[in-house]
């Protein structure tokens, strides 16, 4: 990681409101290409809000408002001329609870391609296979692509959701506690997968699990009460945090 660090996303004095409630205040941080950035913090600290600001998923919530800059490749995504649909294609998201569509495994992965106007069947089939392979799911589902996605186990469903997000070739992958509803084996698989995926993507992961953050992320940001308390390389945050409150949180004294 000592090589040249390319900044993929840059938040500059970024604040966010839900109606009158200020959820984020003045966040400034750079997120790097080909790295996993972990976001930790107690419940309600704004870490999910921050994550969901990067693909403007919070636009769906009425009365929400953003201020400051959120730059993706140097371009503020909250500017009026930004095409949100295009933004969301570039910034993929995996949710806390696996949420496959009530469709077949194949159609789940193909969905993102189809809504983006791709009709070539051969291309779609090849892309579905590749995405499932990248998500380490192909071996388990290759003989039952026409089955309903709900028939998969929880861990498989989550990897299917990752495959679905990969299929549209995003540049950034947002993960909102992707393993919190999974058993340890499935969690391990998802973590291994994240480790593989960072070769191609900038990954931002929100997690409640300290060990997980320490294991998989290169950088860690600690959020509290809507503010960014500390942001540094993961080893630094977990071994020698510069703020006392970070240390207290990491060692489990609160939260």
């Amino acid at each position, binding site marked *: 990681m000592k090589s040249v660090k390319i900044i993929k996303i840059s938040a500059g004095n970024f604040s966010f409101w839900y109606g009158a409630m200020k959820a984020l205040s003045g966040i400034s941080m750079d997120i790097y290409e080909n790295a996993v950035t972990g976001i930790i913090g107690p419940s309600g600290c704004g870490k999910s809000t921050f994550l969901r600001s990067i693909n403007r998923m919070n636009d769906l919530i009425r009365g929400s408002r953003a201020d400051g800059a959120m730059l993706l490749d140097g371009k503020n995504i909250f500017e009026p001329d930004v095409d949100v649909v*295009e933004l969301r294609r570039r910034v993929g998201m995996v949710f806390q609870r696996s*949420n496959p569509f*009530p469709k077949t495994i194949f159609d789940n992965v193909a969905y*993102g391609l189809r809504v983006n106007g791709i009709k070539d069947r051969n291309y779609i089939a090849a892309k579905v296979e590749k995405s499932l392979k990248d998500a380490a799911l192909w071996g388990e589902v290759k003989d039952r692509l026409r089955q309903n996605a709900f028939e998969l186990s929880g861990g498989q469903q989550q990897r299917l959701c990752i495959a679905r*997000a990969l299929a549209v070739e995003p540049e950034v992958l947002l993960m909102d506690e992707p393993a919190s509803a999974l058993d340890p084996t499935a969690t391990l698989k998802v973590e291994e997968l994240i480790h593989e995926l960072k070769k191609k993507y900038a990954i931002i992961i929100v997690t409640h699990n300290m060990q997980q953050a320490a294991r998989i992320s290169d950088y860690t940001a600690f959020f509290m009460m809507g503010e960014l308390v500390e942001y540094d390389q993961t080893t630094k945050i977990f071994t020698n945090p510069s703020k006392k409150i970070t240390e207290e949180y990491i060692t489990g004294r609160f939260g």
Partner: protein
Amino acid sequence: MIKRMKEKIIHGLFFLNGLLVIAALLGIFLLLIVTALPAFKEIRLSEFLFTAVWDPTSYARPSYGILAMLAGTLLVTCGALLIAVPIGIGTAAYLAEVASPRVREIAKPVVEVLAGIPSVVIGFLGIVLVGPFVARIFHTSNGLNALNGSVLLAIMALPTIISLSEDALNAVPVSFCEASLALGASRWQTVILVKIPAALSGIIASCMLGMGRAIGETMTVLMATGCAQAMPHSFIDPVRTLTATIAIELGEVAYGSTHYYALFAVGLALFIITFMVNLASDVILHKYQNVVK
């Protein structure tokens, strides 16, 4: 001790209430069967079901074929569904997806109030408004025909379809929509490709319930469809439905005559049709609830 007695009495009262409803329904059904059966002493079932001439007051040879009326009922109902289903689902999608909360808060009660308009008023609209309009478009002498009835029944079925379809669309988990949007799907792609398929059983059930209402509707079709006793060949033919026949004739028929019993047999046929439609919608709705769990 007294508390337990009270509990038991209340329990008993509610039980009686439930029993009363079931008893009333069964009673109606039994009455229909018992009163309809004597008709078949004189009318062959095959004549009743498969011939098209209904002429119970003929001196020479009374005939009791419901096929033309059955066709009329189905024609008017299917026409109503053809009109109401697309409009209903479109409106529901608009209310669930596009409308601002304020518009929704106003529009939904208004739509539901539409369900409360007396059918005779709708029939009146058919005679003075829809009928002349239909007549002008198709160059017929008057607009009292199946199409007119279909338009009116569509208006009557719409509130049910809109209201229940909107509920079904809103019951689709937010996570499906988020997943779709996060993949770069537009709002309308999300509605059409994810939400409507996920809500499909609820939407189908709403259409079936709307259809149930259309089949059983009497006053509107009596006023607006022309009441002609002939096999309809197109939507601009006047028709007479099963319900209209009962309403017209039952008041003047001699008690205990074959005609009297035959009208109850018509009612029984109607009952069986609506029962099957409602049963089907119930089964679909049930399946849907299981999926959402």
